[in-house]
């Protein structure tokens, strides 16, 4: 009975529309993939870019030390302990300097790195604990500025006890960076973005060399402390550095 009152209808337009849509999507995907894929020549040349500029991890570490020494000469002579801190920070951040040297560069350079610097190991964390007025905040600012000057494509985050300190720290970093340019006689890096919490500069090691420093306020409390301590922890993750700065409480 149904068939008398019914007619066949074709669902062909649905399947046709679906197939056409798939075809369009496939073409779009393929053209997008073509755009994203670098040619063999581009890949080959990009791997030589850094070598052309003559930079490698060792040289960048040397640059960082030079920048810190430049600050010494510009009226910010570091104390004995500040120098110790910087050496330890440098040890913790060592692998960051090799980041753009290609896969396995740090592993290959590790033994030589220990030998050249007379280090026994390169731990990724460092905890510094000293009484107050040892110049820890200043030393962190100096080191951050030196890192920004020497290390390509790095991101460094600093967490301070309050917004006032975090802003002050960031201002210090910018100031020290200017002193480094001045002392070493190099053209300043272009600032891409700057506000009360972060500074982005475009480095001199080619495309993609964006160097970022974040300085954030945080809320940290340590209890049962009867002497004021300042603690820094430098934790080098795969491609970023984190400072927990100025954790102090009585």
């Amino acid at each position: 009975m149904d068939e008398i009152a019914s007619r066949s209808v074709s669902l062909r337009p649905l399947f046709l529309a679906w197939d056409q849509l798939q075809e369009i999507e496939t073409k779009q995907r393929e053209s997008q993939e073509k755009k994203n894929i670098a040619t063999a020549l581009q890949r080959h040349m990009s791997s030589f870019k850094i070598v052309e500029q003559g930079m490698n991890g060792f040289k960048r570490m040397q640059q960082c030390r030079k920048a810190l020494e430049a600050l010494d000469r510009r009226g910010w002579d570091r104390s004995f302990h500040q120098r110790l801190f910087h050496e330890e920070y440098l040890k913790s951040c060592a692998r960051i300097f090799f980041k753009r040297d290609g896969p396995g560069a740090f592993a290959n350079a590790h033994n030589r790195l220990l030998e050249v610097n007379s280090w026994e190991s390169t731990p990724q964390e460092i905890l510094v604990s000293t009484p107050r007025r040892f110049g820890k905040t200043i030393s962190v600012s100096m080191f951050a500025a030196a890192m920004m000057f020497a290390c390509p494509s790095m991101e460094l985050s600093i967490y301070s006890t309050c917004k006032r300190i975090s802003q002050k720290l960031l201002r210090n970093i910018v100031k020290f960076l200017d002193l480094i340019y001045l002392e070493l006689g190099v053209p300043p890096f272009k600032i891409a973005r700057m506000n009360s919490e972060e500074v982005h500069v475009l480095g001199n090691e080619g495309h993609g060399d964006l160097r970022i420093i974040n300085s954030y306020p945080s809320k940290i409390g340590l209890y049962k402390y009867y002497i004021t301590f300042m603690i820094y922890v430098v934790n080098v993750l795969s491609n970023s550095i984190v400072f927990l700065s100025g954790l102090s409480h009585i």
Partner: protein
Amino acid sequence: MNNDNQCTNTEKLYSTIDEWDEKTYHRVWEKWLWGTNGNALPVEQCWDMNEMHVYGILCCIRESVVLSSNAVTYTTSEILPLEEYPELNIVHLHTNKAIQDYSLREILDQLECLQLNWGKIIGALLDNDQVELASHLLKACMSRLGSIARHAFQTEGRVLDDPQHITPLPDIQILQQAQQHHSSAPLLLTYGVVSRKCLRQSICIFFALWRVVAIVEKTHYIADEPQDQMDRVIRALKAHHIESSIDFFNVFQQMIYLAPGMRLVYRTNFAGMYNDVSQVIYFHYPKFCRQPQLSLTEIPQSNVHLLPLVMQLIPDIPVFYDDDTFIPGLSHKCLKSQIPKNNGAHAVEEPNNNYANTGTGQDDIDQIDFQWAWIVSCGEIFLIRYHKKIVDDEEAVLELGNISRQPCDIFLSENRSLVNLVAFFLRYTKRKIGDEMLDASEVIIHRNSLALTAHGHVQLLDG
């Protein structure tokens, strides 16, 4: 044309639907059930449907072709005899009417009835080892829907008896007459077809119900574990696990409350608006009330209450639901790339492997090569063990075209106890849980398994 192209060219498949061989149908079926993303947004240009709906319609039409060629009709009571399954009398809405003669409203009612009682039906059939009857029932319903979908019926007739699911068609003969006589009289819309929304919803429900059947058919049933193994699991449960798992429990109880396909239907009907399962729950059950978690002593008796705690004990085993885009071991690998990054808070799509061999102290290759996951389907919790690597099974590739996925085994406890399933898992993987992991040698093994560098440690400066 190779196998892959044959399976993706839907227009060609549709035009040759009467001539499909078993292999082609198997390929399309496999693609529909495990190779399409049911959660994809419907496409406006394709009648507001997505790939899953398109392939689902193909399967329905094919079923109608097969059934009409066999000229066999069934009533629901012939498929599920009342004498054998008296407890399933609720699913026989039209006892004396063949499914092939159902009107649109009747088939939709029957489908909804199956959806709401699917757990009960599958459970009863499993007890008698007759799960294939569920397939017969579903195929009969699919066939009827396919038959309705490929025909236009008189809107005044008895087939299209649900006005909200009818799309009227202009009558061609009247249109031609009107053109010949230059008549300006209004057109009479005497014929109609089933609406797109209705097709979409029905296909979603079929999709979900078939997935349940497919999971159940692949399941191995495990016998009771020794009592001491079960006691290990119960001993490991602590009060703090209840507190830390309460968020997951609240989501999980809502997922369990839903019938198969409800979430899928909601996601396609309100495309792009789905954020949380609570939307679906309150859409279908406006009076739904969250149940509180049981006390620690009562929890082992209830699988739903126990799983959140088990996830605290074994956090590296993720949970998947039967309507998820990608289920490891079952879905095709091509779907893996379509998983959204934040796909639900509790379905960890990429399990962390750090714990893969924690505490076993053995180098058994079998253990290392496999991963595990929970699959929640139709209110039941299954354990799936799947190969880490996606293996291209040569036979499957030859037979089904470009399909590759992780080989898997699905386990369910014979007595449906999750404690038993967890005990089986622990015994099989030789893993330790809870306090068992706290002895010194375990700590060392655990530490070694963590990705620490050779030189990584905290150094204190002196001076």
